[in-house]
């Protein structure tokens, strides 16, 4: 039988992390490692994090990345959701647009970068467009799947009970498609952070990715680690947010559809 995680088991999950940090700190300070110069202790990383925060450098770069992710992700998700609803619900729209989207979907988000640099130039539009693309296709695909896999009997019953086509969509199909849509959102939000960091590293002079690249050129391992930890926390936080929303809205029933 699978047991639900308890507070105790969550606390137990912290043990390896704490152990890892302790071993890292000791190994780094005692200079056991021959490459200790390249592995600053966690305390030095925390110190650097504090300094970057106080001086505002981290905040400015973080907010740049965050705003790009939010704008690109929201616009891409919304467009993916609306197009997905139209394609999932209307067979003609699906048959018309599906071949086109199938052609674009396999292209990795960063594959668009050279083209977008030419089209948009090095501007704020570039990272937002990149995140838009990386969010649009997975959410489009999950929304179409969610709508198309709604068991037909629900639709038939709603029709016999007097629901119009529009009402069937809004009151039956979309609620039942939510688990799939949330899966798309959850996977895409982590992807958006990975894409923005990569884009900022390659082509954008501001943001966490750009800070990472500057730190690398100055061989500031502590700043690199700070940036990586922020990236990890943001990916995790966004994914957890959608997981929380998914469980709140569909957790009670999603496994019974």
């Amino acid at each position, binding site marked *: 039988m699978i047991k639900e995680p308890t507070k105790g088991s969550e606390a137990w999950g912290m043990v390896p992390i704490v152990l890892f940090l302790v071993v890292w700190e000791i190994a780094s300070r005692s200079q056991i490692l021959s490459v200790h110069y390249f592995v600053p202790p966690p305390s030095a990383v925390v110190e650097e994090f504090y300094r970057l925060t106080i001086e505002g450098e981290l905040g400015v770069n973080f907010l740049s990345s965050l705003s790009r992710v939010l704008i690109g992700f929201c616009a891409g998700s919304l467009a993916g959701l609306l197009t997905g609803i139209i394609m999932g619900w209307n067979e003609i729209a699906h048959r018309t647009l599906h071949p086109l989207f199938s052609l674009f979907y396999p292209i990795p988000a960063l594959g668009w970068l050279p083209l977008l640099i030419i089209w948009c130039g090095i501007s704020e539009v570039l990272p937002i467009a990149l995140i838009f693309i990386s969010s649009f296709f997975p959410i489009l695909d999950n929304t179409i799947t969610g709508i198309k896999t709604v*068991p037909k*009997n*629900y639709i*038939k*019953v*709603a*029709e*016999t*009970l*007097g*629901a*119009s086509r529009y*009402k069937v969509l809004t*009151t*039956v199909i979309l*609620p*039942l498609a939510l688990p799939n849509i949330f899966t798309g959102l959850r996977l895409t939000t982590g992807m958006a952070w990975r894409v923005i960091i990569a884009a900022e590293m390659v082509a954008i002079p501001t943001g966490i990715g750009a800070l990472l690249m500057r730190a690398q050129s100055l061989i500031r391992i502590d700043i690199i680690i700070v940036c990586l930890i922020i990236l990890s926390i943001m990916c995790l936080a966004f994914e957890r947010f959608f997981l929380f929303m998914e469980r709140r809205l*569909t957790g*009670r*029933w*999603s496994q*019974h*559809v």
Partner: protein
Amino acid sequence: MIEIRNLSLPLGDFSLKDINLTIGDGEYFVILGPTGAGKTVIVECIAGLQRFKRGEIWIGGKNVTGMAPEERGIGYVPQDYALFPFLNVVENIVFGLKEKRCPEKDMRETVGKLSELLGISHLLNRGVTNLSGGEKQRVALARALATSPRILLLDEPLSNLDISTSKYLRLELRRLHEVLGITTVHITHNLVEAEEMADRICILSGGKVEQVGALKDVFFSPRNDVVSDFVGKPNILHCETCNPLGHGLMEASCGGISVILPYEGNDAKKISIFPRYVFIYTGKPPGPELNRFKGIVKSIQPFYSLVRLEVEVGENLLLCEVRKERFEDMDIKIGQEVFLILKLTKLRVYH
């Protein structure tokens, strides 16, 4: 009244072939047939959930062929009940009433009445995902009845239930039908279900109506082999004379044999018994000489895990079924003399 006129509908490899049916007002009509016979398609055509080019559906003297499902005044319960899992019981029941913009007060009244009638008052605020099969079925019925339909369409409503719940709900459905008097079309592949519920049945096979009538007519006078096979290939004995024995028993003379059966009266015309209730022995079985007959094996045919034997008894040819292993143990050959016992409690009478 529901009338299906000349309905034909091709659906890939399968097609409904020239269906003509008339279902009376307040009738409990069962469409019986094997899986893939087209039962659900017919119900969906009545409900307006299937489009077709040939044929017409008339409800209450009105041609509803082109009408949308919600305009036909039907309540529909699909096989899996399709209760909306994101709504609780009461929200499921009022779904149709909300679509019809029914006033809040009327909704409350309807929910109260139906929940009492179906015994689900204690479930109203519960989620539907954790209800038992029987509870789900009653909630689905309440939802279908909430909009006061003229016709109730039940698509295999008891097939997902355990035997005891199914038996209980058969009685409940029948009671509900008597209380509401609503025209009901119930589809099933289960003969027992049809037998307990139907005013009339329709045997459907391969998209074709094979026979329509009261169950006993279909059972004792199957129109063809398809119907006979589907109802279990019963042995039919034609009674020449009947002699009441008292104590609820009757002796009937049928084609040179005398059968004792539990029946009060002297008007039995036919007697039937399923082949599985005709027991075969190679030697004379012990016990009283009651419904035991000597006969000659005329044919032997394997039938899935069984063997079917035709045995000539008097002027009758009785079909009996025996498990393959037992048949091999008995080593019966064509032309051999055997003994048959007809199970007393499984004899049915047509009068």
